[in-house]
């Protein structure tokens, strides 16, 4: 199985920050989603996070929650997303990770999830409501099939706690830039820098910064020693796509670094 750590390092070796866009499965419509995914992939992004819709997305702000609600109404399910990815396996250049809440993954069955996700070419999962203490059974079920569970840390995660996460972390580490929900604006540069430096001490894996990144300049506002190896772009991209604009127009400046 592909190692996402290598994917990010390759982008860094080419002198750029790796780019990780997020898109809710089934956005804007269940069928056109697959075209949208291919369009994003064609922009030369490194990893794509595919959002699995959930009825109660407690870590998300209004834009992603609305996309999630519409996807559910349109009948998008984890099973259909995995089938769609399996049918397109080998057609996407970027690594694929699924981002979703615990319950839909749990109801699918953890072992079956690991097997089906691996078969669909998925590299890992991000589960925002699954902190350190609850993660072990999920991580083990995924690792048995060569997938990783991505670690998430926040501005209020202590160094000691990051070090506990580091013992089992694989792939990359998702650093949440602010105490809030997706799309609620970037954290103060000073706080972000402090969180990034703490994460750098705790983890040897690449660091991806997310929550509140709307344009590439946001990264250059950070001190050089606090810049991430990868940038996650969710809400801002979805807003751009909702306005009917092409993905390349938004992602171009990110991919060019």
């Amino acid at each position, binding site marked *: 199985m592909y190692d996402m750590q290598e994917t990010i390092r390759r982008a860094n070796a080419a002198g750029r920050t790796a780019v990780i866009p997020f898109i809710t499965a089934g956005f804007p419509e269940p069928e056109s989603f697959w075209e949208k995914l291919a369009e994003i992939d064609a922009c030369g992004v490194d990893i794509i996070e595919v959002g699995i819709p959930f009825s109660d997305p407690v*870590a998300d702000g209004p834009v992603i929650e609305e996309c999630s609600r519409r996807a559910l109404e349109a009948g998008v399910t984890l099973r259909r997303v995995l089938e769609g990815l399996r049918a397109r396996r080998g057609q996407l250049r970027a690594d694929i990770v699924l981002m979703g809440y*615990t319950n839909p993954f749990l109801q699918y069955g953890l072992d079956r999830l690991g097997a089906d996700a691996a078969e669909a070419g998925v590299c890992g999962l991000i589960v925002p409501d699954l902190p350190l203490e609850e993660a072990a059974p999920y991580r083990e079920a995924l690792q048995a099939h060569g997938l990783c569970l991505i670690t998430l840390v926040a501005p209020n995660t*202590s160094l000691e*706690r990051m070090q506990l996460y580091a013992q089992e972390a694989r792939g990359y580490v998702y650093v949440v830039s602010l105490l*809030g929900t997706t799309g609620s604006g970037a954290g103060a540069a000073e706080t972000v820098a402090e969180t990034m430096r703490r994460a750098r001490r705790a983890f040897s894996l690449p660091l991806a910064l997310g929550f509140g990144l709307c344009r590439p300049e946001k990264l250059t506002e950070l001190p050089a020693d606090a810049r991430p190896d990868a940038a996650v772009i969710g809400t801002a991209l979805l807003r751009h796509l909702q306005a009917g604009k092409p993905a390349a127009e938004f992602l171009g400046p990110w991919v060019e670094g």
Partner: protein
Amino acid sequence: MHRFYEKSMQDTEKTEKGNHRGYYGEYGGRYVPEALIPPLTELEEAMARIMPSREYRERLHDLLVNYCGRPTPVTHCGNLSRELGFELYLKREDLLHTGAHKINNALGQALLAKMMGKTHVIAETGAGQHGVATATAAALFGLKCTVFMGAKDVERQQPNVQRMKLLGTQVVAVENGSCTLKDAINAALRYWTSHQGDTLYVFGTAAGPHPFPLLVRELQKVIGTEARAQMQERLGRLPDYVVACVGGGSNAIGMLYPFVDAEQVKLVGVEAGGTGEPGCANSAAINLGRPGVLHGEYTMLLQDADGQIEESSSVSAGLDYPGVGPEHVYLHSIGRVHYGIAYDAEALAAFRRLASAEGIIPALESSHALAWVFSHAAEIPAGSIVLVNLSGRGDKDLAHALQYIKL
């Protein structure tokens, strides 16, 4: 009273063996975003540091007695007992300040917030009872208060919205998802994530991420601790049955928990079955749900095959929730508590029956517990002593109930 409450605070640790992460058997836990771990840990530490302190215990005790009206009486229902053939007693939480058991918890958590140095409390509310209780406690302690309430509930529960506003609370109408209680909880959790420095989330029921199920039980078990001593003192024995309604489960855990070790006492939790038509929307997570994760806990949930949470339904707004507290699921799994169902029509009939037979108008929530007793009267041996938790008064439900019953 002193005695009952002191005891209640002393046996806090009794069932926490092996419960370090907030698990009751395999249920419970803390399934929240990483950013909520520090405030939950801070709350857990504050519980351990502040709640056993003399200052906290004395202040809370004083408020429960002199502000809320504890201990609440136990009333023998003489007229109904003659009809039923067994002795029916009610624990009268309806007589508390603000009209329901919710104040026990809201005062305890708001006092904790105050002593933690927080300046702002937030709460979710469905029917508005927990919102009113939190708004009351916040007014008393001079804390800023924000209550999140589903937009549909704001519409349906205008009198409680006005009460909260009168008490100085900001009511936020939540327009997300199904616009009901579960969405209000989501909104409160989101708000807490970004305001955790000065804010404590006063959770309304014995559910949610650890330590809320424990905290709420500790603050509500005064109900059962009092009732147990009152029955012992009055009858020289414990009741044969103790019955309480279960939504999230705070009045039920408060009433049932102090009887768990009394093996001869049959314990019954009553879930809301909705209309009772096959496949109807309901609020009976233990009876009709499957295990899953919502609002930070692994518990029984009403959900579809894909793990999406289903909308619950009940004539009683206070029971209208698709999940249930983890300790109830545990007590169910070990067979210590029987969880039954009462349907809307049975609850409405019980509402009317208690009012006309005893002159007490019960909340529609508590009416579910009464309804179970009435519908199982034939199975309850003659002469038994049956104690029902009357968790709240029914004045708030009149307008709603009168849509279904003709006077």
